[in-house]
């Protein structure tokens, strides 16, 4: 692979690793502000990770190797995901490795492993969490896929870079289909990243928790990896959303220098996105677990309708 390509790839990965926890911290901070709480610092997540890494990790006595491997696998998946999503530049040598569909597959892989790990210890909460996680997954995945498809139908491609390039380059056009897709995508994002109204990461209440139940048995470095992975996941979703719906400012393959302008653009977009997310989380209330299928079903339908509209209006 050529040198600038390698460079931008490396930059993308490092940026992802660094920005992801900050994004999480930023979202928490905004939410705290909106809820009139005193906010933790922007770098709180890094401190948390550092603390956890330092702790020794306590593992259930009859946990299988799968349990200990899972965090690394999940982390790996999320890192790869961030590496192939054109957040800063479309000149990513790794990008052809996995297109939009493969990206969804990647998320699914991570989800399967974390759920299996949760079942491995064999506690009541673990299996409960695994079940709920898979329940959300099997509804969110197709919805996400449909979102990608309505973008792919416009750009006649499932490769993320091509999608971004086509969307970014053509003169400004209104895509109703993309509007639908955007709403759907937002709902999926909320569900996938364990956000209110689907899940509330801030509680360990048996009736409500999903993501927390999954990682209940983890501690120390394993927990740290998982936390990092989940913030990477949030970051990845943001980048996907930005790439699909606000692809402006992303550097082209031809112009390596554009990276310098791409980074501030990205940070700016992320910041706004964070505020919006915090806002959403603040105004909406946690819903009962059995309503989640309806929520995600709506997202799914919206995405499908988006595709239909595209085919109807050829736009």
């Amino acid at each position, binding site marked *: 692979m050529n040198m600038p390509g390698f460079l931008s790839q490396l930059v993308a990965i490092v940026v992802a690793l660094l920005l992801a926890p900050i994004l999480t911290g930023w979202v928490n901070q905004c939410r705290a502000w909106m809820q009139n709480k005193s906010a933790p610092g922007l770098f709180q997540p890094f401190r948390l990770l550092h603390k956890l*890494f330092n702790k020794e990790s306590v593992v259930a006595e009859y946990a299988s190797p799968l349990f200990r491997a899972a965090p690394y696998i999940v982390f*790996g998946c999320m890192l790869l995901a961030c590496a192939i999503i054109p957040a800063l530049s479309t000149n990513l040598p790794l990008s052809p490795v996995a297109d939009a569909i493969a990206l969804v597959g990647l998320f699914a892989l991570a989800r399967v492993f974390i759920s299996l790990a949760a079942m491995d210890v064999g506690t*009541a909460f673990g299996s409960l969490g695994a*079940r709920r996680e898979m329940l959300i997954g099997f509804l969110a995945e197709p919805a996400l896929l449909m979102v990608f498809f309505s973008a792919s139908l416009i750009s006649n491609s499932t490769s993320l870079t091509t999608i971004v390039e086509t969307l970014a380059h053509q003169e400004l056009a209104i895509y109703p289909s993309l509007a639908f897709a955007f709403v759907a995508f937002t709902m999926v994002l909320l569900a996938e990243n364990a956000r209110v109204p689907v899940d509330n990461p801030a509680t360990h209440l048996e009736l409500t928790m999903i993501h927390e139940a999954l990682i209940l048995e983890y501690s120390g470095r394993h927990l740290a990896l998982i936390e990092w992975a989940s913030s990477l996941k949030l970051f990845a979703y943001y980048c996907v959303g930005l790439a699909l719906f606000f692809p402006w400012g992303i550097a082209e393959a031809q112009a390596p220098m554009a990276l310098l302008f791409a980074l501030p653009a990205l940070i700016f977009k992320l910041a706004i996105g964070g505020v919006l997310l915090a806002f959403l989380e603040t105004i909406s209330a946690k819903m009962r677990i059995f309503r989640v299928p309806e929520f995600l079903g709506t997202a799914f339908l919206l995405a499908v309708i988006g*595709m239909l509209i595209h085919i109807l209006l050829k736009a």
Partner: protein
Amino acid sequence: MNEFFDLIAWGHLEWVLIAISVWLLIGMAGMFALRRFTLVARVLFPIGGMTGIILFGAALSSLFSDVASSIVLPVGLPQLPFHFRLDSLSSYFLMIIGAVSAGVSAFAAGYFRKGEGTPPGLLCLEYHLFLASMALVVLADDAYAFMVMWETMALSSFFLVTANHRIPEVRRAGYLYLLVAHIGAIGILLCFGVLQANTGDYTFANMRAQHLTPVWASVGFVLALFGFGAKAGILPLHIWLPEAHPAAPSPVSALMSGLMLKTAIYGVLRVSYDLLHTQIWWWGVLLLALGLTTAIFGVVFSAVQVDMKRLLAYSSIENIGLLFAGTGLSVLFSAYGMKPMAALALTATLYHVASHAFFKSLLFICTGAVLHATSERSLGKLGGLIRYMPWVAWVTLIGVLASAGLPPLGGFISEWLLLQSFLFTPGLPNSFLNMLIPVVAALIALVAALAGYTMVKFFGVIFLGQPREAKLSQAHDAGMWERIGMGWLVLGCITLGLFPVQFIQLIDPVTQRLIGAGLGQQVADGSWLLVPVAIERASYGPVIFLLGVSASFALAYLLVRWFYHGRIRHAVPWDCGFPCQNARMQDTAEGFGQPIREIFAPFFHMEKELPGPFDNKPRYRVTVSDHFWYWLYLPIAAIVERIARLIGLLQQGRISIYLLYSFLTLIAVLVVVTLR
């Protein structure tokens, strides 16, 4: 590589036939060593596995040198001796049969135990007869040979299913299976009756030469769909499948699910692409609709099963549905003359044929191993086996990932290709179909995701968590032969997952032959990237994908160790500080299926038994069964019963009445002949 193939390029068909006859000989040998267990299990079955590999090699090489060779055996009907022909389509399926059967035979060598109902020699005979007839079905080049082999396949597998016929359920399952198979076979037979077009010449060559009117062609196609659908377990002819697969010994279920169902796909392809020249668009729609309905039905049902083999059986129904959908899409495309798209869809289908063959037989033999270790089939009584049989567990995990359609394994690639081909459909001239497509794609995505759900349940409940029964701690890991078989199949799954480019080169001749287009050239460019159309459009590189994940895995591992530490402490699980944990508190299989039951409630025919608020022995029971029993099969049975009763009234034993019948018949016939 290729010069090696050139070396043995002479007479692929002969090689194939030699391999098949070796199988038959082994069967005969089993007949003579009826009760000599060690000989049968440790010698004959491994030889059968070897033969499978030979078949695999022969078929592979014939795929590379794409020349159809045929042979006529001096058996069969006088004017219609058995014709056999080895073209790319048949060699592709032969290759899969050979490869998969090799693994399954090796497993079977270690699987069959002493004193299980049928004597081992007989099992050996039926088993190898089954393999041989499957191979010959794919080879057959005239209707009679095809039908004979087809029914022999059904018959031998029936006897294998009923190997343990002391159990009434097994008998019932076998009966149901053979009945559906036979009725389906009659359908296929009638289809050939249409295709031969009154020439009285039943060779496929003649059928290819015929040019049928669209009406007759459609009649033939529908009959074929009925017949092959019955064998494949397409809705609503699927009921035999979830009965027969659990009843059969695991290697047999592996063969049935992994290979026999594929022969039905082969039949559909053979009829609709080879024997019939032109496709009509609504055939494709029909296939698509049936396939998707079946797929969703299958996956939803498999998600709520509590018997591990039933779960896999329903998942087979789901995969068959996907295969039919893919076929339907390619038929649709080729009906509109969009050859490259048709080739893409067909490639996806054939790829899935291969990967499903591997991972499903792998999963089935894994359940076999579990069954032997624990003698438990119900998920509710398993759990935690990864500690006692780690080998089987990890092998199963790979199968599960492949079956869940996750990258970087085989199942994902076929679904990926299928979805790619769906993204082409806006090119279709028919706008109504264009509208259809997003829905279809969405459904496929849904099915794939649900498959993931099911597979997590399958693996998690069997192997993870704590053992739900005390005896499970005595479970032993698989033996040598079983490991060899599993290892071989795992190898297949991984290869299919990591080297799609190379494997599509094998599918290329098939699509070239059937459709006249193929992905071979296109794909060959990016050797590590799978590029079906153009690099801008879509690409996927499993190897790099795997490398990426594992690299970051390793990186994270090392860095953590480097900057921090690797200290670890073992303790009782925390579980929110819950004091008294026991295995019964884990999610049961029913529990895991419950959300699906709630969401897809209309799919199921459920009987619930809920505890009242005040009963001191509260009991919760829910049984899920198939609507089609109550909508279709029981009514049919009732109607037949009623008609039979009415006809029975004809014969009430009074001789005067009998005489009256004859008398009236005589009068009637006389009237007829005089009025002529």
